[in-house]
């Protein structure tokens, strides 16, 4: 849903602003985010630094849906990475409308992977410890993958539409 809203909002700049300008803006943002993820720069990113309370899912008939919505959309969650912000910016500035849903689907799959892997790893939550130990290596790798994939995507859609 967030991707849909962003894609709709992005239709305006993508149709009015020349593609090279949008690419330049996005490229600059990508470099800044890459520097942050590689540990070369430090700056906060917009986040609603609160966790969704567990009792939300018991408050109403649609509690579980509300829990997933608040966490999935980032309404009430932390954001240790700036890559979600970059993906959102890409949808607004450079990603063609239909492709935005592939970005959103991938994002959801990436978010889903964590609880799946964690539960399959063990019942004691020790996957989080493994994540913390490998984070200095995994985080830059994911940043390079994300930025590289978006760059390749832009080269495939040179007109920006």
């Amino acid at each position, binding site marked *: 849903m967030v991707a849909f809203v962003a894609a709709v909002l992005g239709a305006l700049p993508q149709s009015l602003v020349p593609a090279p300008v949008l690419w330049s803006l996005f490229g600059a943002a990508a470099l800044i985010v890459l520097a942050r993820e590689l540990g070369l720069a430090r700056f906060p990113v917009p986040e609603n630094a609160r966790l969704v309370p567990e009792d939300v899912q018991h408050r109403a008939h649609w509690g579980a849906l509300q829990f997933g919505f608040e966490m999935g959309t980032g309404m009430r969650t932390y*954001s240790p990475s700036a890559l*979600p912000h970059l993906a959102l910016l890409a949808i607004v500035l450079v990603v063609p409308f239909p492709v935005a849903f592939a*970005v959103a689907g991938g994002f*959801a799959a990436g978010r889903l992977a964590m609880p799946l892997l964690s539960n399959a790893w063990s019942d004691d939550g020790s996957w989080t410890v*493994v*994540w913390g130990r490998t984070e200095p*290596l995994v985080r830059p790798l994911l940043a390079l*993958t994300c930025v590289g*994939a*978006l760059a390749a995507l832009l080269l495939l859609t040179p007109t920006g539409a």
Partner: protein
Amino acid sequence: MRPAPPRPRWLLHPLTAALALVLLGAFATATAVAAQRALAVAAAALLLAGVAGAAAGFANSGST
């Protein structure tokens, strides 16, 4: 009764997931470069978009 064999944990490791995304991205890029049909290029573009999104989503794993 013999105990169940241990699961291969390396498959569940965060680094494995990240490397799988790298491989998928490389595969999609190579497909897009070598493809001769527009449909294949479009499929590669969608896969690239999915990889970018998945990397962003997985990078946020520390938040849960």
